[in-house]
């Protein structure tokens, strides 16, 4: 172990030395060193309550492709070339065979947009192959806690980071009393848990809770609006006095129908109304205009949160390849795990990894359908190490033992 550490240290120091030297131009005629990135996603077309919220077919993948192009622009100066190999499986299908095919075709790092259970099976299969996984889709806290893995970098924020980002803003607004309505599916319940935790953590009070059971109603009917206009006030009638109505409906069963239809006139937040997210398609702060323009030009649509997580994952790999001047995955991964690693991702400050579970620290955007309302952490929520660690489960509370 000590030997490995010394080896690593000497490598790291030598790479630091190299970092100060002028970048060498690749010799003419030498083929570039190639780095193949895999992209594994669970995908099936899914309806949404609003047609505006139906996922684009290439959600996430498009972000990775824009970053591949960015990496290649940089790679030109260093003789490095990056490519993306995308594989798809069905929701909740066994993802391991598709992963093995990606590995067989030469992918040494794999971006994963999978469910928590799929991700764990892929991570365990990847370990034997020395392949690093970048989780860009799963927000489950358990993947960073009791089920954490040493070969998985989490680029997507957790549900607890999202809920904390929202809660800080509501407390800053001095709107501390919340009523919570949540859906009946697993993701809905987990996000409701994260909101309850956030309330306890930041001094909010959940004055009442109510479950909205999914009874299997069709999402689209011609005159459905008429019924919803009558049902939603009745459903929210009788809640005790509250400042904000929180909604936990990741499953798209009722959340979109809550704003403007409540019994009491109250703002809505959570998975509807004011939504916490890793990126907002209208964010133009901190140089954001540049990535938004680049993305829109390349894809013809706006950049969504999953696109940004995928872009960031590919940029992290590219940044490490640039700084180590290597396309070797073990060197790249060592560099990403070093304490000084950081990445710029149009969020106003450098993003770094939590060393105890490889979760990327990041600000959380709070936006409605049109614009960014705020960005958390909010002013005044302090932390001894990084204010970004006021979002989500912090080191003293972690259940992660990396293995």
């Amino acid at each position, binding site marked *: 172990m000590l030997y490995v550490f010394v080896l690593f240290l000497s490598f790291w120091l030598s790479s630091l030395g190299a970092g100060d030297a*002028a*970048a060498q131009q690749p010799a003419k005629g030498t083929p570039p060193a190639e780095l193949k990135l895999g992209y594994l996603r669970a995908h099936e077309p899914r309806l949404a309550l609003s047609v505006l919220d139906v996922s684009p077919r290439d959600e996430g993948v498009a972000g990775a492709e824009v970053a591949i192009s960015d990496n290649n622009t940089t790679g030109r100066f260093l003789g490095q070339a990056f490519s993306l190999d995308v594989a798809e499986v069905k929701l909740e299908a066994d993802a391991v065979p598709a992963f093995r095919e990606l590995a067989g075709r030469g992918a040494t790092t794999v971006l994963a947009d999978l469910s928590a259970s799929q991700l764990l099976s892929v991570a365990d299969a990847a370990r034997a192959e020395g392949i690093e996984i970048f989780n860009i889709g799963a927000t489950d806290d358990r993947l960073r806690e009791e089920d954490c893995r040493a070969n998985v970098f989490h680029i997507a924020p957790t549900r607890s980071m999202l809920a904390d980002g929202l809660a800080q803003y509501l407390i800053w607004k001095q709107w501390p009393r919340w009523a919570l309505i949540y859906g009946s599916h697993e993701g809905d319940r987990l996000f409701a848990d994260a909101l309850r935790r956030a309330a306890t953590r930041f001094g909010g009070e959940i004055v009442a809770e109510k479950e909205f059971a999914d009874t299997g109603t069709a999402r689209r009917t011609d005159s459905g609006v008429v019924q919803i206009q009558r049902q939603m006030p009745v459903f929210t009638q009788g809640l005790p006095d509250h400042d904000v109505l929180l909604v936990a409906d990741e499953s798209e069963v009722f959340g979109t129908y809550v704003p403007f239809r409540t019994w009491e006139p109250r703002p809505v937040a959570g998975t509807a109304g004011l939504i916490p997210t890793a990126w907002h398609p209208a964010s133009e702060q901190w140089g954001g205009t540049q990535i938004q323009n680049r993305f829109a030009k390349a894809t013809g649509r706006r950049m969504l949160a999953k696109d940004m997580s995928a872009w960031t994952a590919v940029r992290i790999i590219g940044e490490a390849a640039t700084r180590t001047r290597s396309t070797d995955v073990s060197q790249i991964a060592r560099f990403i795990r070093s304490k000084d690693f*950081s990445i710029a991702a149009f969020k106003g400050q450098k993003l770094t990894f939590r060393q105890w579970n490889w979760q990327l620290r990041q600000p959380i955007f709070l936006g409605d359908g049109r614009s960014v309302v705020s960005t958390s952490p909010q002013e005044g929520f302090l932390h001894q190490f990084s204010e970004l660690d006021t979002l989500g489960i912090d080191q003293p509370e972690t259940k992660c033992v990396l293995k």
Partner: protein
Amino acid sequence: MPNRTTFAAITLVAGMTCAASGADAFMAYVSNEKDNSVTVVDTVTGAVVKTLPVGQRPRGITISHDGKFIYLCASDDDTIEVIDTETHEIVGQLPSGPDPELFVLSPDGKTLYVANEDDNLVTVIDIESRDVLAEIPVGVEPEGMGISPDGKTMVNTSETTNMAHFIDTDSHEITDNVLVDSRPRFAEFKPDGSEVWVSAEIGGTVSVIDNDSREVKHKITFEIAGLRSEAIQPVGVRITADGKKAYVALGPANRVAVVDTATYKVEKYVLVGQRVWQLAFTPDQKTIISTNGVSNDITFIDVATDEPVQSVTVGSMPWGVVVSPK
């Protein structure tokens, strides 16, 4: 925009004070990113002389060596506007390529080198003929632009590639790529041409690159008591004509760092306004002016004492500043 009465009154007062003081009066031109205007400020009185309506999202701003024309990047209009400093009229446009953000003028005043953020290009423009002489592919999101005093070497920084690209101005070829810290925003040559200083906004450092070896010889870091390191984001850099002192604008740290160029030690942090980005000296080098984006003002710093002397409210989100010799 101020109403006409205020406007006339300010101009009158400014005129009177100028005549009375007899000191060298310079005009500072400040590009206001958010309200599509340029504010003209008398550097002796601090009075706003005029507010000029310009193209959309004005950012980079510079001036011809004879002081007759202002060149202004109107980023969202994909053009560079030429403003006559006598009449304050827009008298022409230069073909900038898409989304021009920053540029640098060659020492002979004939060529303009422009960073096109959206296309990963540096565009070289002949000012007299308004021809594009070359488009040089660089890294992702080119921004900072510096030129050596002899005009032979141009340096561009790319914000996502994180490199300083050294370009030979004869061949228009990149000769060296020097890796620096995250989001390099600005490149400034020392007046003797020996070093290039490159700021890194997210990295929080200034890399000093040796212009002979093209290697980073020193990295300047900044520490301000009570401020978390993430808030220290170096952007604009200016070095005095005698080469002895450098000024570094530190963004949301709301301060300008004063650095001794011999020791690379930070001598002082000057508190200015909120989110300080760009800097410009007056031609007599007695004053350096900072643009403070979030507080909508500029601050005059006395170069002899490094004390902030005065702040002047300009337009919305001031971005760049240049001072004319008259």
